[in-house]
C-alpha cells in the first residue's frame, strides 16, 4: 500500500464518513468510560494490525482485514472472560499485546505507519458503504440497549434479575466496540482510534449531570474534534489523525477548568 499523501481537501463522502465515525466513537465510548474500560480501547485496537497485514498480503482492502480481526478479537475476549472470569481489561491487555507483536511482524514499513496513524486519501465506495452501515449499526445498538447497559454497569447481578442477558449483552457490546474501532482505522489508525473513543466521552463525563447530557456532549465533542482536526490538518498540510486526537485532548484539558460538583 503506497503511503497516502497528507490531505488538503476531503470529499463530501469522506466528511460524512468521518462524522459518522465520530458519532459512533462518542456513543460507544460513553459506556466504555463508565464501565472502566478506558484503557481497554487502546490494546483492543491493536488486534486490527495482523488483519491489516494479512489483507495487504492478499490484496484486499485493509479495512476489511482489520474488521475481521477485530470481530474475532472481540469473540476471543468474550470467550476468555467467560472461561476465566478475569476482568475485560486484564484479558484485553494480555491478548492484544500479543496481537500487536504479531501485527508488527505481518505489516511492515509505510503500511505499518498508515495502519498505526491512518490517512485521509481516496475513499473507495466499499469503505464508504461499510463505514456508514457500521456507524448506523452502532447508533442503533446504543439506543436499543441503553437501559440494559445502564443497569449492567451499576450491577450485573441486579441487571440479571431485571431480565438482562448479561453474557449476550457483553458480547454485543464488545462487538460494537470492535466495530467502532474498525470504523475509525481509516482516518485515525490503530493507535489513535482508541483515543477518540475515550477522550471525548471522558470530557463529556466531566461536564454532564445525567446520561443524556453525557451522550450528547460526547458526540458533539467527538464530531467537533473530527471536523476541526481535519480542517487544521488541511491548513497545515499534515495528517488528520493526530490533529483530531490533539483537538479532542485540548477539549479535555479545557474541561478540567470546570469544577466538579
Amino acid at each position: 500500500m503506497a503511503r497516502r499523501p497528507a490531505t488538503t481537501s476531503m470529499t463530501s463522502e469522506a466528511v460524512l464518513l468521518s462524522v459518522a465515525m465520530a458519532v459512533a466513537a462518542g456513543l460507544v465510548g460513553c459506556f466504555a468510560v463508565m464501565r472502566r474500560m478506558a484503557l481497554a480501547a487502546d490494546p483492543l485496537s491493536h488486534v486490527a494490525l495482523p488483519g491489516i497485514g494479512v489483507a495487504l498480503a492478499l490484496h484486499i482492502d485493509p479495512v476489511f482485514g482489520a474488521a475481521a480481526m477485530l470481530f474475532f478479537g472481540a469473540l476471543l475476549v468474550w470467550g476468555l472472560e467467560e472461561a476465566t472470569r478475569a476482568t475485560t481489561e486484564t484479558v484485553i491487555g494480555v491478548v492484544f499485546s500479543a496481537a500487536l507483536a504479531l501485527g508488527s511482524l505481518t505489516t511492515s514499513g509505510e503500511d505499518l505507519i498508515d495502519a498505526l496513524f491512518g490517512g485521509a486519501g481516496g475513499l473507495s465506495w466499499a469503505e464508504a458503504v461499510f463505514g456508514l452501515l457500521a456507524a448506523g449499526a452502532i447508533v442503533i445498538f446504543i439506543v436499543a440497549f441503553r437501559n440494559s447497559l445502564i443497569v449492567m454497569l451499576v450491577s450485573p447481578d441486579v441487571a440479571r434479575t431485571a431480565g438482562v442477558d448479561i453474557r449476550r449483552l457483553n458480547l454485543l457490546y464488545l462487538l460494537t466496540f470492535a466495530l467502532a474501532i474498525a470504523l475509525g482505522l481509516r482516518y485515525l489508525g490503530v493507535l489513535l482510534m482508541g483515543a477518540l473513543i475515550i477522550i471525548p466521552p471522558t470530557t463529556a463525563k466531566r461536564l454532564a449531570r445525567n446520561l443524556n447530557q453525557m451522550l450528547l456532549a460526547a458526540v458533539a465533542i467527538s464530531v467537533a474534534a473530527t471536523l476541526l482536526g481535519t480542517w487544521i490538518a488541511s491548513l497545515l498540510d499534515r495528517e488528520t489523525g493526530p490533529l483530531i486526537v490533539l483537538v479532542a485532548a485540548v477539549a479535555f484539558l479545557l474541561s478540567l477548568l470546570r469544577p466538579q460538583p
Partner: protein
Amino acid sequence: MSGQRAPVEEDALEVSHLSVHFGESSVLRDLSFSVSQGASLAVIGPNGSGKTVLFKALIGSIPYEGGVHWAEGTRIGYVPQKLDLERDIPITGLDFLRARASLAGQRAANISRALDLVGLSSEVNAKPIGTMSGGQFQRLLVAFALVGEPNVLLLDEPTAGVDEPGQERLNELVRRLQQDEGLTVLFISHELSVVYRYATSVLCLGRRQAYIGAPKTILTPELLQEVYGTEAGYHIHDQ
C-alpha cells in the same frame, strides 16, 4: 404491587442439594430448603458462612451444583449489598429507575410510587447515583426492585448504611409487601431482633451445617452459640 396471596402449599422456591465451590474452597455444601409463597425467610450466619453466595446462586450469577427451582412466573427484585460506584458517574436516580421501568415495560408512574414507598423525595431524580449517601442509594435500589413489580424480593442487608428512621421504614415496607400483598421475601440480616420480628422462618448458615425453622426454634441461645461461636444476643421489640 401485583398479585393475590398464593396458596401457601405452593413453594415459591425449592433448593435441593445446593453446593458452591470457589476452587478448592467449599462455601455451601449440600444445602436443601424450600420457601412457601408469601413467606418471609431470614438468612443469618456469621461472616463468611455464604449468605451472599447463596443469594448469588439463587439468581444464577455464579456456578453451582444441585437444584434451584423458582415457581413459574417468578419476578425477582434483588437488592444487593453496598455497591462500589464511581462518584462522578453521570447516571441520575431517574436514569436508573427509568431504565428499570423500560426493561419491565412499566409506566413512569411506577417510579414515583416506588420512591414514595421507600421514602425518597423526588430530589434523587436529578442526583447522580455516585453522589448519593449509602442510605439514599440503598433505598434507591429497593425502589428499583419495586419498579419491576416483583413477586419475590431478595434483600442482602437492605438497611446497611440507612439511618434509624429509614431502617424502620424499610423494614415496615417489606413487612407490608409480604403480609398485605403476598410477596415472598428472602432477606439477609445481622440484626437478630429484626429477624425475630419480621421473619416467618429462619435459615441459619453455620460453618458445619445449616438449620432452618421458625424464629423461635432457630434463635435460641444454644444454637446461636454453636453457630456464631460466641454468645449472640438480641432484643425482641414490642409487637
